């Protein structure tokens, strides 16, 4: 992986809310075509990393670099990078008063100032890809959670991002909708898209990840390939964490 060009990197990041350190001296670098999955218990700072990568969160220490260029606090530099870094949120965040097509076309038209005809064509293609062509004139409220999330992914893709950030995109979905959304992510990974994914879906993480980052209490606890991490976790904390996703068969007392 290290041969490929580095796309985004966070260096020695410290982030505090009031006195509580959410991230403590955390570093991560993401290379082209790589799928990095960040796992860890709730409140460990996973989502904060994504938000920092997209400049949505001010940091106290450290720096973010995008293709070697330092992202400073200046608005110009942040908005330029945001165009290249697509983000998909847990609660979709579609614009409720805009149709699905308008949702997808908004940023390419207004931010990137691209040609309307070309943007529309591409938006329709992307919607077809996730099986939502017939919903193009619907409004978000008419869609199921899984459909909304697929639209949100399309909306991010329409910007031609160089890296995609997924922030617990299935956490608000019913189980049967989780699959339809994760399938889209899997197909993007297959295409070689660079992605950083925060998720609680461990079997999905195992399937999609090139690299797994395990975070606890704002620290990087363990890092490794998917099979290293899931099959042979090195740290006690990681073993403990992974154990919470498995259940032992209940043995009823009379059967003993």
């Amino acid at each position, binding site marked *: 992986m290290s041969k490929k060009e580095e796309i985004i990197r966070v260096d020695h990041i410290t982030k505090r809310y009031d006195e509580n350190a959410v991230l403590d001296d955390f570093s991560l670098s993401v290379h082209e075509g790589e799928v990095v999955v960040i796992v860890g218990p709730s409140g460990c700072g996973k989502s904060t990393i994504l938000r920092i990568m997209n400049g949505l969160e001010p940091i106290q220490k450290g720096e973010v670099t995008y293709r070697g260029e330092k992202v400073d606090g200046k608005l110009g530099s942040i908005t330029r990078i945001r165009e290249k870094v697509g983000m998909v949120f847990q609660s979709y965040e579609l*614009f409720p008063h805009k149709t699905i097509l308008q949702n997808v076309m908004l940023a390419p038209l*207004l931010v990137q100032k691209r040609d309307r005809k070309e943007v529309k064509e591409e938006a329709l293609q992307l919607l077809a890809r996730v099986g939502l062509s017939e919903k193009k004139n619907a409004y978000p409220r008419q869609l199921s959670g899984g459909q909304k999330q697929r639209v949100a992914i399309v909306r991010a893709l329409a910007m031609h991002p160089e890296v995609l950030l997924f922030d617990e995109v299935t956490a608000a979905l019913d189980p049967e909708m989780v699959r339809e959304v994760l399938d889209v992510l899997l197909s993007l990974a297959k295409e070689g898209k660079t992605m950083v994914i925060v998720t609680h879906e461990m079997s999905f993480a195992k399937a999609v990840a090139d690299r797994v980052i395990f975070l606890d209490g704002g620290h990087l606890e363990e890092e490794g390939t998917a099979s290293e991490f899931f099959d042979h976790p090195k740290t006690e904390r990681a073993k403990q964490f992974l154990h919470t996703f498995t259940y032992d068969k209940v043995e009823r007392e009379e059967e003993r």
Partner: protein
Amino acid sequence: MEFKDMFKMLADGTWDTLYMVLISTLLGYVVGLPLGVLLTITDVDGISPNKVVYKILDVIINVTRSIPFLILLILIMPFTKLVVGKSYGTTATIVPLTIAAAPLIARMVESSLKEVDKGVIEAAFSMGASGFTIIRKVLVTEARTSLLVGVTIALGTILGYSAMAGVIGGGGLGDIAIRYGYYRYETGIMIVTVAVLVILMQILQWAGMLLSKKIDKRRGK
């Protein structure tokens, strides 16, 4: 008074009232809408927090809103005279009405814009949208239902204020109600005038609500 004369007087009064109310509300929005946007974006959790700007606007708006309209009418007479050349009549009344309307409208715009989901604003930011694009395409568009309800409330309030202006010869239905009904004890005319005001208010409210429902894409089938 003959019926024909009374009808003409009421028709003219209605027209004058509508003229004052519509123009003042429009001018009120010209001032109040940008103020409301400024309040929203400079507030602590806004998209461009600025304590000083927020506080200054906050105080100015609160002070203006604290002045009872009747007092404001009299207080700014010299200013009104400066602007329109006289301090009575329908056109002159537009000045105090606008001054009363702007801060009220600013507050309503502020509360409407603050209803817009923070996550949606953040999503727009994450796509690289500039603050200006977000104000135009996200804040104002997404808050439009609430903004329109605000317009309805503003029109209703200004209608009420415009009737008060009758005390200083402001013209319109309020003027008629005071001159005939109050000073001349012609209760009949007063009742009819008030009835017209009631009908106007009903129409405004009904039309406003109908329109705001129509543009609300979050609900319905």
